[in-house]
């Protein structure tokens, strides 16, 4: 169990209790629906509907977050980098859209662009939050096993599992290498000499990873590995799981039909 990634996976909420296979399926249905629900901004009377639909999606995600008993602060911290990036992407929309412009000082701001930016931002946050809740309420290794049962291709699942196991090893190694360089008088400065030392360091990290890959393969082969990662995970479907997926399907349908109402 990973102390950071799986930090709140041990809590006990109805979301934690769901079978991860059903939970992932339900989350996937919602994410697809939110993505498919295209804003119809250009036909203006429906603009307010787009905004309310997006807001409803975000409200759903927030509701699920509250229901999961994952601390809100933790979720916000996970979201912050992605949110910052998104904001950078949409901040120019009001400036480049041409319709419905108003003047604020020397800026020409498009209300349509503003609306599109808001809708995209809100929906993206809703999706990210949904993912945080879905992944945060199950131990990562169990999520992987569930994906495997859902017939996600074996290589993808194995890559994710090894990433989970080795990401932090590589971070640590990188930190240790920098410490070792510093302990022997290396001061990172801009300049050709430090650049060369650093690139050599990176080189040895890469070679180290290749060596490591070979050693891991040896260790796996020595214990009978033949291409498939075996698992003992037991999954049990309960009525709550079926209800959760059904709920997700119903909400998705409502969202997608909303524009025709």
């Amino acid at each position, binding site marked *: 169990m990973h102390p950071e990634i799986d930090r709140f996976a041990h809590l006990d909420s109805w979301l934690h209790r769901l079978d991860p296979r059903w939970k992932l399926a339900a989350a996937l249905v919602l994410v697809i629906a939110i993505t498919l629900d295209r804003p119809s901004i250009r036909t203006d009377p429906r603009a307010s509907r787009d905004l309310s639909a997006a807001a409803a999606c975000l409200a759903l995600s927030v509701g699920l977050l509250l229901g999961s008993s994952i601390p809100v602060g933790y979720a916000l911290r996970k979201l912050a980098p992605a949110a910052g990036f998104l904001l950078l992407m949409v901040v120019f929309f009001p400036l480049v859209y041409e319709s419905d412009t108003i003047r604020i000082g020397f800026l020409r701001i498009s209300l349509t662009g503003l609306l599109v930016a808001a809708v995209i931002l809100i929906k993206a946050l809703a999706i990210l939050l949904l993912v945080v809740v879905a992944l945060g309420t199950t131990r990562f290794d169990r999520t992987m096993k569930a994906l495997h049962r859902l017939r996600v291709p074996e290589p993808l699942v194995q890559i994710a599992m090894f990433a989970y196991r080795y990401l932090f090893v590589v971070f640590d190694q990188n930190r240790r290498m920098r410490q070792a360089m510093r302990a022997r008088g290396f001061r990172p400065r801009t300049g050709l000499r430090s650049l060369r030392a650093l690139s050599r360091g990176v080189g040895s990290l890469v070679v180290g990873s290749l060596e490591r890959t070979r050693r891991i393969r040896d260790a796996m082969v*020595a214990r009978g590995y033949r291409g498939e990662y075996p698992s003992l995970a037991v999954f049990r479907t309960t009525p709550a799981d079926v209800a959760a997926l059904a709920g997700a399907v119903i909400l998705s349908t409502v969202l997608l039909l909303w524009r025709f109402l």
Partner: protein
Amino acid sequence: MTEAALAARDIEFTFSDGRQAIRGVSLEIARGEPAGLIGPNGAGKTTLIHVLAGLLKPQRGTVEVFGEPIGVDGDAGARRRIGLVFQQTEDQLFSPTVFDDVAFGPLNYGFPRGEVHERVRDALRRVGLEQAEDRVPHHLSSGERRRAAIATVLSFDPEILILDEPTSDLDPRGRRDLARLLGSMSQARFVAAHDLELILLTCRRVLLIDEGKIRADGPAAEIIGDHRLLEAHGLEAPFGLRGLGARALEDLIARERSDG
């Protein structure tokens, strides 16, 4: 005649960079026999072990496990009878959790699923790690990782246990526990170690390897008590055993065993 548990004949192994690590090694380990492998750094212990376990393919020579040739990457048949604990444990534990790692062997080798839980618990208990099931291997201390690595092979009950430098990161208690565990087993054991005390306590027979060749093969007390031999191959008996000959060592072992 019953065949040996492990038999190697005329093994030669050269790495791809041209360095020859094994130069004509032949050896046999009998069923149930505990044997030690000693030799200085770079002598070829790890390389030999990897050849024996079928992870490296020798350019010459053959390895047989209970009379069956071991193929590299091939059939799991001969391989499942060998449990190998690597010198570097960091990469022996590759699973998301300790439990998964200890279950990896038994599941690959097709033990009944219902039995696997029990086997994992039992293996972890034998190495004193029953609390660690759910932990990420990366966050174990190196001694805990060593214990977990040993559990990963105990769990499928191999008929030959090969350990490469198993005590290098164990504390004195852990080392003693391991010696006791090894002593209590009936499988063939092949232990490579710089820890001559461990070898003395757990192995009746010792092979000395240097520069890729077996330089001596005989009763543990005789070889470890032969200070000139050890010195000639860059080895040293630990402080407490220095100056003790074969007889004195035998007595010491007998006393230690009856205490332990």
